[in-house]
Structures are given as C-alpha cells and as structure tokens.
C-alpha cells in the first residue's frame, strides 16, 4: 500500500518536472497566438527561447554540485531530461532566428554569421550540444563506456561558449551577464574544488604506500 502510494507520487513528480520546462514555450505560443508579443514578436521569441536554453543548461550543471554540496540526490534522476530540454530550447532559438528574423534568406545568414561573431559562438555551442543529446540514451551510455563520460565533459566548454555568446551582446548594462557568470563560476568552481581534493587524496595515498 505504502509502496503503491510512493510509486504514484514518483509518477506525479516526474510529470510535474517534465511539464514545468514546457511552460515558457506554452506562454510564448499563447501570446504569439493572441498577438501579444509587441512590435517585434520575432525578437521576443528568439530572446526568450535563448534565455531558457541557458537557464536549463545551468540547471543541468547544478545537479551534480547539489548532490555533492547539499547531499540532494533526487534531482539526479532529471539531469538528462534537463539537458535535453536545454538542447530543445537552443534548437528552437536557432530555428526561430532563422525563420522569423532571417526569413531563411541564406545570403543574410552568411552575412550575419560573418559579421555577428556572437552568433557563430552560439551556433557552435548548439552544434556541440547535439552529440550529447544523441548519446543521452542508456544504450549509448553502455556502448560508449568510459568514453561517454569524456564526451559529456563537453558541456563545460559549451557553457563557456554560451557565456561568450551573451557577453558579446552587452550594449551597456551587464547585470544579467554578471548573474549568469557568477552562477556558472560556482557550478564549475565546485567541480574544480572536488577534483583538486580528490587529486591530493590520491597523491597522499600514493605517498603513504
């Protein structure tokens, strides 16, 4: 009885976590439908989907430190889902840019890519995210073995590309970039800390032996 109850709760939790990241997309779709996105709906959609691609990537990166620092284990179950959602929003972000802003004009696309370097950096980040999404299944994880972990360390350079992508767009106010940068600094810094700690432990053990 108790088991069945906790199973039901587990399902509920899964559905809530699964549906929550879709809310921004739902909000955008609804407001686009009722023409409530202002004078430049294209820009609004591109901006919001980009923001959520980053938010979800940062959430993905937060799950390991949450476990190590705060002993919070349950989010680990959703790390893959959050990563895939980040890829999903990044893909919508790029598709919206190409469709709504460029109107698929290839001449403009080439010009934009060559003249707006931050677009290249962002596109590179998305490109590198794709193999991570493709190899996110359990089968792929098994097949790649140790290499899977190595491959998925790509998420660190990707997060740095994302930072460059948004810093390069600063007009005059860097408040948002500062917040994202500080959070990322903590997320990557904690990994560095644990890595160094493990290394000294191994070295000490080697010396003792």
């Amino acid at each position, binding site marked *: 009885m108790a088991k069945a109850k906790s199973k039901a709760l587990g399902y509920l939790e899964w559905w809530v976590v699964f549906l929550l990241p879709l809310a921004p997309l739902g909000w955008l779709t609804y407001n686009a439908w009722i023409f409530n996105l202002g004078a430049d709906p294209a820009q609004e*959609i591109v901006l919001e989907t980009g923001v959520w691609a980053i938010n979800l990537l940062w959430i993905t990166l937060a799950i390991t430190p949450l476990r190590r620092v705060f002993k919070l284990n349950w989010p680990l179950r959703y790390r893959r889902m959050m990563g895939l959602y980040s890829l999903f929003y990044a893909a919508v972000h790029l598709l919206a840019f190409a469709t709504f802003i460029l109107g698929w004009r290839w001449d403009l696309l080439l010009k934009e890519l060559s003249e707006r370097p931050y677009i290249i950096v962002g596109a590179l980040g998305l490109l590198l995210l794709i193999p991570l999404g493709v190899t996110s299944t359990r089968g792929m994880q098994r097949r790649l073995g140790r290499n899977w972990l190595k491959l998925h360390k790509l998420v660190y350079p990707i997060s740095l590309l994302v930072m460059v992508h948004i810093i390069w767009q600063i007009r*005059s106010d860097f408040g948002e970039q500062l917040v994202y940068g500080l959070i990322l600094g903590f997320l990557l810094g904690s990994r560095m800390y644990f890595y160094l700690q493990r290394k000294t432990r191994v070295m000490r053990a080697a010396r003792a032996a």
Partner: protein
Amino acid sequence: KIRESVRNTALSTDDKLTPYFHVMSYNNFYEFGTGKKDPARHAQNFQTDPWKVEISGEVGKPGVYNLEDLIKPHLLEERIYRLRCVEAWSMVVPWMGLSLGDLLKKFDPTSKAKYVEFTTLHDPDQMPGQRSRFSTLEWPYVEGLRIDEAMHPLTMLAVGVYGNAMPPQNGAPLRLVVPWKYGFKSIKSIVKIRLTDKMPNTTWNLMAPQEYGFYSNVNPAVDHPRWSQASERRLPSSLFNPNRVDTLPFNGYADEVAELYRGMDLKKWF
C-alpha cells in the same frame, strides 16, 4: 490631445505608419530600463509639468525658460519621419513639433556657436535606469549636433506623437528628432540646450567610441562592429514576415542632407 498642428507634407514620408500602440510600447529609453517594454512600464508617473529648459552658451539670450513659453510662439507641425535604430530595426512615426533651428534663432546664436549640446534630465528617483549599478553609461545622457545639422529644416524638437502629447516613454515633454541619424542621437526629455564652439561629448560615444561615432548618420555601408547595418526590420514585423528592407544612406534623406557632409570620409566620421 495637445495644440492644433499642421501636417508638413513636404517633409513627410509616404511609408506606412507604425501603429501608435507599438510606437508607445516598444522603446529604447535606458533611463527607464534596458528592456523594450521597460520604459512604458516604468515611466508612467514621470513628472513633466512644470518643465524648464536651460538655454546657455554661445547665445545672446541665455536663460532658464518654461517649456510652454518656448513652444508658444511656434506653429506646431506634424511630420512623418522614418526612425532607424542602431539595432537595425525601424519605425515610421508622425511626430508633432517644430524645427529646432526656428527655436534656436530666437536666442540669437553667436558666431562662435559651432555645435549644440543637449542634456536629458538626471533624476534617479524618477528614472530607475539611472540607479542601475551595472550600467556602463554615464548619466545624465548627453547628445550633440553640429550647428548646421541643428539648423537643418528636417531637425525637429518634438512635443507630441500621433496627435497626442508625447508619452513619457517616448521622451516627454520635449525630445529631439533627427531622422537621418540613428535613433540614439534623438535625445529624450531635454532639460539643457547649450551652444558651444567645441564638439560636445555624446553618451554612447563616451562608452564605446569604436562602436558609436559623434555623427552616427544612418549608413548601410558602415557596419556596427558587431552587426550589419545593410538592412533593417521595419516594425511591426510579424512571425511570417520579417519585414526586412534595405537600409538607405542617411535613412532615405540623402537628397536633403548629404551636402552637409560633402568631402567627408563617412567611414572615418561614422
């Protein structure tokens, strides 16, 4: 509603107007926040009455004047101008106001008046953007024109839009409109006009001189270092039509203003 105005058709474009709703809800006015919707949200209680303007420097009649007294002697005109933002979007707006030159002449500029410097109100209590700790812009916002640019008949001081008094988010109660330059040159909520013999500082130029020049004439051949200026999106755009149009030299006003820059290398004096 403000005073009657007369449409100046000779100076107006036939381009399709950007609806009033978008003109007053999609704004760059960093004193009220950097988001496009921030000014409409944060400027509604902005106090614009009474409003004084200081006119100083190389003029025969310097002083601090009430806005009504400055405007009263002039016939207000409605002019439909293209507005091209440096961010590569544009609108078409029916402004109401008067030629800046007509107003300046009343104060007897001296022969040493080579430039005009404008200053926006500095009031962090009313303008949350001026309180931001992360802004790299210095306040108050300052802008400037060469005297011949200021005296050009296209250069306008606007007090209204779409037949209504200027909404605060659009730069109430008094703003500049220079249609052949990028939008940020058209300084909002002006409190000081100073005529001078030296080229004045301008806010965006102070922050990033390699990106924003003193002249900032609309020019499809000179790109912003981080993006192209060759084309623009005419707002409102819709999702199925980006409404992209080629950008014209001097925003389409080359016939009227190109002679002001004859012999100048526009790539150098961008």
